[in-house]
C-alpha cells in the first residue's frame, strides 16, 4: 500500500503528542560523572513538581520537521500583502536584524556593569531623542513592552500628576471609534469610562466633547488619525476643551505611521502618548519578537516617569533610580532592548527625509486602494483617507455576504485577511491598511482580488459564504470555539 502520495508539506501534521513514543529523546547528554543530586532534598518538596504526564517524547529530527512544516503553513509579510487594518503590518527591513545581531548588542546583559553598557545606553538615549523629535514631545520612556502597556503607563502618569495637584479625578473620555484597549486601560487604572459619540464625518463631535468634559474628567484618549483613517481636524480645539477644565490629552499613537515627518502630536496639544515601535518603526509583530510601546510626554509629566531614567553626566551614562515622584517600575530592566535597537536602525537607515517619504507612501498606497475599490464597496466616511481605509459590507450584505465572509475568501486569493468588524462605528467594517512598503504591483493584485470577490458575491454568494476553499482546513466554527473552548489537548 502506498501511504505517501503527496509532498511532505501538504500532508496533514499530527501533534507532537500524537507521534510521541516512550523513551525517545531529542538530545544526548554525556554520562553523569558526579554523584546524582536528589532534587527534592536540594530544593525542598514544595519546589519540585512531579513528572509532567504525557509530555511528548520525540527525536530531534521529528521535532525539527514538525515545526518546520508548520512554519510553511503560516502567512507572513515576507510572502505577500498583509492588509490587517490598524495593525500596520509593514515589512521588517533586514538591516534591523543585521544591527540587532551585532555581537556586543545581542550578547549584552542588563546586569553587566554600567561602564560596559555605555554603547547600549547611547543607543537608548539616541532613540529617545529621535522619538521626541518625531512626536514633538519633551521626554520619553522606552520601557513599556507593548501598546496597551504604554497606554497603562501613560494613564498612570496622568493619574499621578493629577494626584500631585490634589485630585486624581474620576472619568476618562473615549471616542466610540477607539481601540478596545483604550477603555480597558482607563478601567484598569481606576477610571470610569465615558464614551463620546463621533459625528457624521467619523470625527470627534466637539459639542458632545464639550458637554462631556467637566472637572471630574482626567483625560481624553484620542487616536489621531482615528481608526477610520481620518485626521481629527478639530484636534487643537478638542485639546483646548480638555485643557480648559484641567484635563489631559492622551494620544493613542497606533496610527503614528500616518504622521511621522509631517506633523507632530506635541504641536497639536497632546500631553502624553504612546507609540508602537512594532507598527510605525518596523520592528516585528507578535511571534516575530516582542513589541515596544514607548510613552512620550510633555515636561509637566516628566517627574512621574518610570524608573530607572537614563542620566548623562559629561560623556558617561548611568541609571537614575532617585526619582521620588516616579510611578515606579513598569518593566524589568529597560524595556525590550532588542526591539529598541531595531527601531533605531530603521530611523537611521531612513533619515529624516526617508521617514517623511515612508509616511507619504503609506498615505498614497491607502488612497490607491480606496480609488480602486470605491466603485465596488460602500464607503460610509468619505473624508480624506490617511494611512488606511474602512469600507462597509452593506452592499454585499444584501446578498447575505458579510465582511468576515469576504475576508475568508481573500485567503483563497493568497492574501492575509483585512480587519473585520472594527471600528465598531462602521457597520460591517472592512478595514484595509496596505502600509508604505507595498509595491504597486502587489496593490493591483489585491485590488483585482477584491473586485473579483465583489463579482462572486453578485454571481455566486455561496462561494464566498463558504470560503475559504483552498486552505488545509475549511471554515472553522469560531462561535463554537468561543462558546465551548477546549484549551487542553487530551488523547
Amino acid at each position, binding site marked *: 500500500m502506498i501511504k505517501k502520495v503527496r509532498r511532505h508539506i501538504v500532508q496533514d501534521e499530527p501533534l507532537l503528542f500524537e507521534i510521541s513514543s516512550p523513551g525517545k529523546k531529542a538530545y544526548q547528554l554525556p554520562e553523569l560523572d558526579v554523584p546524582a543530586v536528589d532534587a527534592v532534598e536540594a530544593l525542598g518538596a514544595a519546589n519540585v513538581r512531579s513528572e509532567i504526564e504525557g509530555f511528548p517524547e520525540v527525536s530531534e529530527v521529528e521535532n525539527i520537521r514538525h515545526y518546520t512544516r508548520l512554519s510553511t503553513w503560516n502567512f507572513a509579510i515576507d510572502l505577500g500583502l498583509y492588509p490587517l487594518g490598524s495593525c500596520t503590518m509593514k515589512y521588517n527591513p533586514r538591516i534591523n536584524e543585521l544591527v540587532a545581531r551585532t555581537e556586543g548588542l545581542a550578547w549584552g546583559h542588563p546586569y553587566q556593569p554600567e561602564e560596559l553598557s555605555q554603547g547600549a545606553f547611547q543607543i537608548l538615549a539616541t532613540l529617545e531623542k529621535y522619538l521626541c523629535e518625531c512626536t514633538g514631545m519633551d521626554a520619553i520612556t522606552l520601557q513599556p513592552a507593548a501598546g496597551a502597556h504604554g497606554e497603562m503607563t501613560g494613564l498612570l502618569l496622568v493619574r499621578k500628576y493629577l494626584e500631585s495637584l490634589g485630585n486624581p479625578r474620576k472619568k476618562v473620555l473615549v471616542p466610540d471609534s477607539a481601540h*478596545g484597549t483604550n477603555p480597558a486601560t482607563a478601567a484598569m487604572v481606576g477610571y470610569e469610562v465615558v*464614551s463620546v459619540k463621533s459625528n457624521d464625518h467619523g470625527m470627534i463631535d466637539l459639542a458632545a466633547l464639550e458637554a462631556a468634559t467637566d472637572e471630574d474628567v482626567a483625560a481624553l484618549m484620542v487616536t489621531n488619525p482615528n481608526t477610520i483613517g481620518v485626521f481629527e481636524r478639530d484636534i487643537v480645539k478638542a485639546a483646548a476643551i480638555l485643557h480648559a477644565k484641567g484635563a489631559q490629552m492622551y494620544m493613542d499613537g497606533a496610527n503614528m505611521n500616518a504622521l511621522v515627518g509631517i506633523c507632530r502630536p506635541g504641536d497639536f496639544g497632546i500631553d502624553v502618548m504612546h507609540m508602537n515601535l512594532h507598527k510605525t518603526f518596523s520592528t516585528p509583530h507578535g511571534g516575530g519578537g516582542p513589541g515596544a510601546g514607548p510613552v512620550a510626554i510633555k515636561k509637566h509629566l516628566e517627574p512621574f516617569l518610570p524608573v530607572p531614567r537614563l542620566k548623562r553626566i559629561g560623556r558617561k551614562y548611568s541609571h537614575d533610580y532617585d526619582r521620588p515622584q516616579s510611578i515606579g517600575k513598569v518593566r524589568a530592566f529597560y524595556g525590550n532592548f532588542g526591539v529598541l535597537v531595531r527601531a533605531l536602525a530603521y530611523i537611521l537607515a531612513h533619515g529624516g527625509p526617508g521617514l517623511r517619504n515612508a509616511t507619504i507612501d503609506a498615505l498614497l498606497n491607502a488612497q490607491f486602494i480606496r480609488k480602486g475599490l470605491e466603485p465596488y464597496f460602500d464607503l460610509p466616511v468619505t473624508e480624506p483617507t490617511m494611512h488606511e481605509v474602512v469600507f462597509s459590507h452593506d452592499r454585499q450584505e444584501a446578498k447575505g455576504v458579510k465582511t*468576515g465572509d469576504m475576508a475568508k475568501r481573500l485567503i483563497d486569493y493568497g492574501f492575509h485577511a483585512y480587519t*473585520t*468588524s*472594527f471600528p*465598531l462605528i462602521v457597520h460591517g467594517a472592512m478595514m484595509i491598511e496596505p502600509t508604505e512598503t507595498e509595491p504597486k504591483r502587489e496593490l493591483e493584485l489585491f485590488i483585482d482580488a477584491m473586485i473579483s470577490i465583489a463579482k462572486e458575491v453578485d454571481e455566486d454568494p455561496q462561494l464566498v459564504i463558504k470560503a475559504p476553499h483552498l486552505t488545509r482546513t475549511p471554515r472553522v466554527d*469560531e*462561535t463554537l470555539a*468561543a*462558546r465551548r473552548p477546549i484549551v487542553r489537548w487530551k488523547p
Partner: protein
Amino acid sequence: MYPENFRYTKEHEWVKVEGAMATIGITHHAQSELGDIVYVDLPKVGTTVEQGKTFGSVESVKAVSDIYAPVSGEVTAINEALNTTPEKLNADPHGDAWLIKIKLSNASQVDSLMSTADYQAYLGS
C-alpha cells in the same frame, strides 16, 4: 416582533415594567447586529444599576458591547442560564433570554424611554 408592553432605549435595550419590578434585556435588533453571542457578563444580585450607565456586557464573535441600564434600581435576579447557554440570547432575546430583574428606584424614568412604535421608527431611520 417588538412587544407592545416593552419600552426601549437608543442603545437597544428593552425593559418590561410590572408594578415596582422591571425585567431588562437586549432587543432582537441588538442580537442580530452583534451576531453569535458567546459570553454574557451580568452584575451581582443586590447591586444597583443606574439609568444610562453600563451594568454589564455582551460578547459576540465580533466585539464586546456594553449594556446600559434603561432605568435605575436594585438587581433582584439575574438570568443564570445565560452563563452556560449564551446562544439563547440570539434565539429568544425578548423572552427566555432576559438579562436582569430589578426593583425600580424611580418608576417615572420609564416615561423617558421609547414606545414600540417609536423604537421601530428609530430602527427604520
